[in-house]
């Protein structure tokens, strides 16, 4: 099999990526539009960014979103890691099937159902809706994603490493802390990043579980978009896209570099 770009491959890759990226590029492009219209070019300007930073409602929403995301990602990673340990290591226990069902179900559950059911729970328990209800809802669905990410790494974990630690004098708990966790760290970090992004992104569940005074950024964007398209949203989107893109690219360059260094090390070790 020759691994060169054929014209077919080049064409389909080009078309595919144009389809994926062109709408985003257009969005970014029109954030610098002088005109109020997002589809007609009226000259370059950064006034929408300036206006965005003057809008307190947006800044408040951004702050709420960030707080929710930080708290929920951290909690979800802790709970998800525990759940991953249970799924991979705990062996048989009563209710195991139900447990793994509860881990996987939220991944395929429509958000409207998750949101509705959590809202009804909070209402019937008489909990005031706001920051904490959104956060709890986000923890619940993020922890399932975190559990899947961590457990998929954990199944390939060489358990003889833990045995070696116990053999050298660690209790099972100590060997988990000293050996398993540090080696699992990359998976745990990606679980946290995934939970964080899911929380930043969520509109539907937050809409159901939020109360007065707790409006997240996606909720704010949604209500603005329903009123009509404005370049301010384009500006906000551009900032968000920029942050995410930089994060992902940095992460992938870092992993690529460590990978390359690792390969180089291995080559040197064998020679």
């Amino acid at each position, binding site marked *: 099999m020759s691994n060169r770009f054929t014209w077919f491959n080049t064409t389909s890759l080009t078309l595919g990526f144009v389809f994926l990226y062109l709408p985003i590029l257009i969005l970014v492009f029109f954030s610098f539009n002088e005109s109020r219209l997002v589809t007609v070019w009226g000259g370059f300007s950064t006034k929408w960014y300036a206006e965005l930073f003057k809008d307190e409602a947006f800044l408040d929403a951004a702050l709420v979103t960030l707080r929710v995301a930080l708290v929920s990602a951290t909690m979800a990673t802790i709970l998800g890691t525990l759940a991953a340990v249970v799924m991979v290591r705990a062996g048989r226990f009563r209710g195991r099937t139900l447990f793994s069902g509860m881990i996987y179900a939220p991944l395929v559950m429509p958000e409207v159902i998750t949101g509705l059911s959590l809202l009804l729970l909070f209402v019937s328990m008489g909990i005031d809706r706001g920051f904490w209800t959104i956060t709890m809802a986000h923890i619940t669905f993020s922890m399932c994603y975190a559990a899947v990410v961590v457990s998929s790494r954990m199944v390939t974990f*060489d358990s*003889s*490493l833990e*045995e*070696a*630690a*116990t*053999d*050298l*004098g*660690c*209790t099972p708990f*100590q060997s988990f802390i000293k*050996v398993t966790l*540090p*080696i699992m760290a990359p998976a745990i970090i990606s679980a946290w990043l995934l939970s964080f992004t899911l929380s930043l992104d969520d509109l539907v569940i937050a809409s159901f579980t939020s109360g007065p005074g707790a409006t997240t950024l996606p909720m704010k964007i949604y209500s603005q978009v329903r009123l009509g398209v404005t370049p301010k949203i384009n500006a906000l989107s551009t900032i968000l896209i920029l942050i995410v893109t930089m994060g992902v690219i940095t992460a992938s360059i870092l992993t690529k570099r460590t990978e390359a260094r*690792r390969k180089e*090390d*291995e080559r*040197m*070790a*064998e020679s």
Partner: protein
Amino acid sequence: MNTSSAKKPSARFAPWDNPDEKPLVRFKNVTKRFGSFTAIDDISLDIYEREFFALLGPSGCGKTTMMRMLAGFETPSEGIISLGDDDIGAVPPYKRPVNMMFQSYALFPHMTVEANIAFGLKQDKWPKNLIAERVEEMLSLVQLRKFAKRKPHQLSGGQRQRVALARSLAKKPKLLLLDEPLGALDKKLREQTQFELMDIQEKLGMTFVIVTHDQEEAMTVASRIAVMDDGKIMQVATPEVIYEYPNSRYVADFIGDVNIIEGRLDHKTEEGIQLAWAEGEPEIKIANNASRSENENACFAIRPEKVHVTRDEPQGVDNKIKGQIDDIAYVGNLSTYHVRLSNGMIFKAQESNIRRLANREFTWEDHVWLSWRSTAGVLLD
């Protein structure tokens, strides 16, 4: 094939022959079941201090379970395992004075070589300066002082193996367990490392238990070998005894190459006994075997290198059979001749190739004589 290592011949090391010697490790009627599967079936076994003891067998024979019970990763379902005077059956691995070198080495990838070796010492709360000293000592023992600051992935396979060894030795365990320690190395390195292991064991005066499926490795390093099959120990003896006096067809067949002839015992005399094995063929004379009686069914086992191949009928030998060469396996230093006997059986005989190939005596289809002394083989059930 390699036979046993040369243990110092002056003072023969054989505590197992001394009834007053107390074993370091004792398995007493140990059984281990996993669900309905019996991995270890009522094994009793003694291992003595300073021994290099090998558990040898095919995969699934229970040798790894034996080792994991010694390390504390499995507890016996029945029976007692004692170390010195203590019953250790239920003691968790982190409280045992026993360390293990893992088959995968299990080096902690996030720690340097130094930190890996120091891991167990820190766990035991050794003072800092003593840890540093001990790590130095271990690094020089395995000749890795230059690599102290490296991470495991920056080492070659052989170096990793030595780090794993150093780490498991650092805590001065009463017993060191080695799980297929050389399995991941290539043949040349493996042979060299076998001798290093023996040197280290001798130098430290420690007790080693090695698990292996490689019979040459077991023969080379071990003071005694336990040959296992299907959760049972078939024979425990020194490599010489295992090779020359196997106690069963299984052991004879598992260790090295062997010819086995089935027949019926006959003509018992002072010198030995004879085996009738085929119509019209002379009976095979076998020395000793006073416990055997006539008319028993038995089989005769003889190693190929103990059988001579000649073109002319040999004179003054105990046993001789006529046959025809079916195949020749030439491996350089040796040639193995597959000789077809009158009853169709293939009999293997091995000769050193003292002469160059061009002057080889025999070729395919040649008629030859096979001969051996009456003491060369053994009778088995």
